């Protein structure tokens, strides 16, 4: 088997907390991403699922090099990303593009669609000939399902619907022909009827262009149609990782079970017993000793408060970090 496109090993991104003062060193750190390891294969979609504040967006920004990891390594297409700086990093980044949550916010309101999609080419000084650039912009728009592209080139984002805007964002990512797409909650701000379009588009890109996708979401319900594997994150850690069908049908970590149970199923006949966790995600500056999930875990045992379970393999490609998983 070929080596994965992305190999993340023991990645850790910490943020200092409190006012950064000349006199005081920060006393505490937010463990935004804490010892995370995973792979993404060529043409594979990995869904990263977790509640807000679990570190999933920080993980994406760290992959992109917009946040510096504290420790750990990111191997992207055979290149160690954490060691890169300046122009090398910029060049490597070309193969890794991001799509953001809110298409109303992630597009500059004063730029035309054509300019937005061409921007990555200009920034990377690619396709400098005007005709070449235009051809690539058109191709990207078409690939993102905005057909015919001429209709959209001169429009401003405010003249487009939410779904079209998200397609523009996708086109701007595709124009560099990246090998990895980081999609941070790409559909959570969209109406249900439009949501399906975007998810279908991502699934199609994965299939036809062999683009790898990291699909970040808080909603397990949206990932099934596109993700090959699911990674569940809690407080900076991956607590369960496995093939989509395995995780959905045989969740092994109590947190995954709880998340699955509260994900609304679109049919009243599928109403099920919900495992509702008490309270909210704890303060990531004061992590509990032992298992991070223990204080909210419905099946926690004394052992869980004492020792932190490692991510252990259960069956082929399915791992969970639970003493009793």
């Amino acid at each position, binding site marked *: 088997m070929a080596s994965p496109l992305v190999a993340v090993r023991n990645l850790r991104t910490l943020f200092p907390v409190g006012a950064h003062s000349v006199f005081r060193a920060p006393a505490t750190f937010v463990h935004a991403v804490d010892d995370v390891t995973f792979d993404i294969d060529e043409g594979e979609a990995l869904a990263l699922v977790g*509640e807000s504040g679990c570190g999933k967006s920080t993980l994406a920004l760290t992959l992109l090099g917009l946040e510096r990891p504290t420790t750990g390594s990111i191997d992207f297409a055979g290149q160690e990303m954490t060691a890169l700086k300046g122009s090398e990093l910029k060049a490597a980044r070309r193969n890794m593009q991001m799509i953001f949550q809110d298409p109303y916010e992630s597009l500059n309101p004063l730029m035309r669609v054509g300019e937005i999609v061409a921007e990555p080419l200009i920034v990377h000084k690619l396709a400098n000939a005007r005709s070449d650039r235009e051809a690539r912009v058109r191709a990207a728009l078409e690939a993102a399902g905005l057909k015919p592209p001429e209709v959209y080139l001169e429009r401003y984002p405010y003249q487009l619907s939410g779904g079209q805007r998200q397609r523009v964002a996708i086109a701007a990512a595709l124009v560099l022909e990246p090998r990895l797409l980081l999609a941070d909650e790409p559909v959570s701000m969209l109406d*249900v009827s439009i949501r*399906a379009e975007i998810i*279908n588009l991502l699934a199609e890109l994965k299939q036809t262009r062999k683009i790898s996708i990291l699909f970040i979401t808080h909603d397990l319900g949206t990932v*099934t*149609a596109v993700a090959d594997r699911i990674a569940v994150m809690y407080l900076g850690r991956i607590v369960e990782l496995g093939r989509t069908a395995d995780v959905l049908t045989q969740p092994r970590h109590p947190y995954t079970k709880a998340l699955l149970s509260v994900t609304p199923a*679109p049919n*009243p*006949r599928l109403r099920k017993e919900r495992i509702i*966790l008490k309270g909210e995600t704890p303060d990531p500056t004061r992590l509990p000793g032992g298992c991070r999930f223990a204080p909210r875990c419905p099946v926690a045992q004394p052992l869980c408060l004492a020792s932190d379970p490692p991510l252990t393999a259960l069956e082929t490609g399915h791992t969970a970090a639970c003493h009793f998983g």
Partner: protein
Amino acid sequence: MRTKDVTAHVDEKMPPTAAKPVLSVCSLSVDYVAPPKPAAHAVQDVSFDLGRGEVLGLVGESGCGKSTLALALMRLLPPAGRIVNGSVRLQDIELLDLDEARMASLRWSQIAMVFQGAMNALNPVRAVGDQIAEAIRQHDRTIGKAATVRRVDELLELVGIAANRRTQYPFQYSGGMRQRAMIAMALACNPAVIVADEPTTALDVMIQAQILDLLSRLRRELGLAIILVTHDLGIVAEICDRVLVMYGGVTAEYAPVDLAFNAPRHPYTQALLHAFPDPDHPQAKLNSIPGAPPRLDALPPGCRFAPRCPQAMERCQQAAPALYALPDDQFASCFLVEDTAEDRRGSLDHG
């Protein structure tokens, strides 16, 4: 001509408590007027009944008029809003006939509201307990200070907030707690009906589950009637008894929740359901609805869904279908169900 004598639908199969509706809305229509622009028909001829302890889901995409409908029930429309037709009866009182002072006295004591985004719906510079107490005292002038405090504590406890947080400010609460505090505030005067406008939007799934759980407990224990405005069909499937699907300001389908999900009759409801991943075939391609909802100030001449409807006929472009009454208390406004319709008694003639 728009007919006024409309909707008489009561379901014998409903639980006996629901026999007499707490709230009954009849062909309610709301326009937004901002001359010189044409009036936007945000809500048109919407009717429904709500029984004690019942949860009605009001679903639709953004801009379909569901929030306008919710505000119209409270008579809290923005100044451009006009209720141009219909009736809202709350326990035999016609709300639309009341003068403003009388309406103000019924607000919150009879019909309360949980707003979208509790961060903005709570005054940032007043303690949360204070804002709940204000609602209590507004509708019960005789209640003493100590009794008010006791009641506030009781309410906070009911929604799972420790009483010692009474004197804290909204910014000291987490998102989920603010929404609970809003619910506690809504319960302050024991209202018969609560209108919850997107109460879980922008909250995480787990917090959402906590809030939904709280709402269903309240409906069970207090017999509260709840109108749940949402864009998420999943939430409706979780806790609602009946569902009213709105599209472009009109009722597309109005049915018991099981029928709406398992035997939807309106193509829009069907399309919405197909846009969800099928639990049996999770990796199958999703069905999307091409196009966008109509602008309320430029509605198509015929059926409002026709431009996006996969089954649209010639007729749909010219005339809007009535809301047809179907067996088992199901209603749909589509020409396709005309033949199976029991009658047109519950229908609204747009032609």
